[in-house]
């Protein structure tokens, strides 16, 4: 049975969507509309008890949390497409290190920016708080300063090969430019290596296909 990916194409759903394409794994995309409360139905909660998206059903194997799903797909299809998870002990430790930098720090500040500029005004009817917006943007800049140093010495965050860690940045990084009111990811004069890295990642066929989906810009 073909793998099912549940969830409207939000940032979290774009992550596994992109990795499935990277690994050339056939799948069926089943939108779950949060605005209509489809994530709170008993059927969906039986799969994902927190009522969040995404979630996958791989021939009866149910899994949630976007980064865990990406890891599962990259592990199961390790020998298909790019490797994405380094196996060497020390390389893997650095992969884990950058995974938590992305999942905790990049996520917190980029979502903070998006919340103020986009999610709160558009979805929750709340006004933007310019002070909070500036705080998150400043903190995000400081994080990206470290990225700049690393990316001036190597092509990607863990080394010279692309890994899941790089790809997992894509949805929030793209949304910052599309709806976050900032060109922080593309600014070649401030952080040329971050801009180069982001440009390379967004030029991948997998990501271009994610962006070509009807709701890819949501």
């Amino acid at each position, binding site marked *: 049975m073909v793998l099912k990916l549940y969830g409207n194409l939000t940032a979290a759903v774009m992550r596994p969507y992109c990795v499935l394409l990277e690994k050339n794994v056939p799948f069926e995309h089943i939108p779950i509309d949060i605005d209509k409360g489809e994530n709170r139905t008993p059927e969906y909660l039986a799969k994902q008890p927190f009522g969040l998206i995404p979630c996958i059903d791989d021939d009866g194997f149910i*899994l*949630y949390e976007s980064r865990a799903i990406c890891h599962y797909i990259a592990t199961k299809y390790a020998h298909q497409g790019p490797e994405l998870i380094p196996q060497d002990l020390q390389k893997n*430790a650095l992969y884990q290190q950058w995974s938590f930098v992305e999942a905790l720090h990049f996520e917190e500040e980029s979502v903070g920016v998006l919340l103020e500029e986009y999610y709160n005004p558009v979805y929750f009817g709340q006004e933007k708080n310019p002070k909070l917006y500036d705080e998150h943007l400043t903190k995000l800049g400081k994080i990206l300063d470290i990225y700049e140093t690393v990316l001036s010495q190597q092509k990607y965050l863990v080394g010279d090969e692309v890994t899941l860690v790089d790809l997992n940045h894509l949805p929030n990084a793209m949304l910052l430019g599309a709806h976050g009111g900032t060109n922080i990811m593309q600014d070649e004069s401030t952080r040329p290596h971050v801009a180069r890295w982001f440009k390379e990642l967004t030029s991948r066929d997998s990501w271009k296909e994610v962006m070509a989906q009807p709701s890819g810009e949501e």
Partner: protein
Amino acid sequence: MAIKLYGSLTSCVTMVMCVLKEKGLEYERINIDFSTGEHKSPEYMEKQPFGQVPCLDDDGFLVYECRAICHYLAAKYANQGTPNLIPPADDFKAIARFHQAVSVETHNFNKYVWMVTRERVIKPLYFKQEWNQDIIDQAFKEIDDKLAVYDKILAKQKYMAGDTFTLADLFHLSFGTTVIRCGCKSFEKYPNVSRWWNDISSRKAWQEVYEESKHYYDPIF
């Protein structure tokens, strides 16, 4: 050369100390004094460019982010001390459930226990500022909502990633203990969460680390 762990006795550092103890590893802890800004010194930022603790130096190999350090130690010393803190590599479904549980901790638990820690611990301890109880109560409410879901998960399995104790459980210990000290009651409210919490927090490794480290936060409680 011994393992060196850099950091004062914060919740992030005691998390790593717990894994070192579970694995029976000798190590040297090198204090990093926040009050003198040692974590932002050029020497330290050479090791940890974000200027955060902890950081591990294993015979010259440097790694940071507490959960990544724990993962590295559990992988390198897989056959020593407590086994299977990470499920065996050939069982990719068990590994997948493990990463799911790790992500649940990161995004559904850490996010809110960190809110409490920042407000109730970091503000008074390092900045001598009053805490805002409204922010703490709001975070307690979020923790309570999430632990209600944990209760459903833990009704079907002993631990967060299945029926074996893994890092995904251990990651809850240091910050969970801290928010309980801050007044969070949700851990005893839900029967399956309570059973799980009593099980993992009574492990010898954590008990010893807690005894060794609790004095660090004593001034603010």
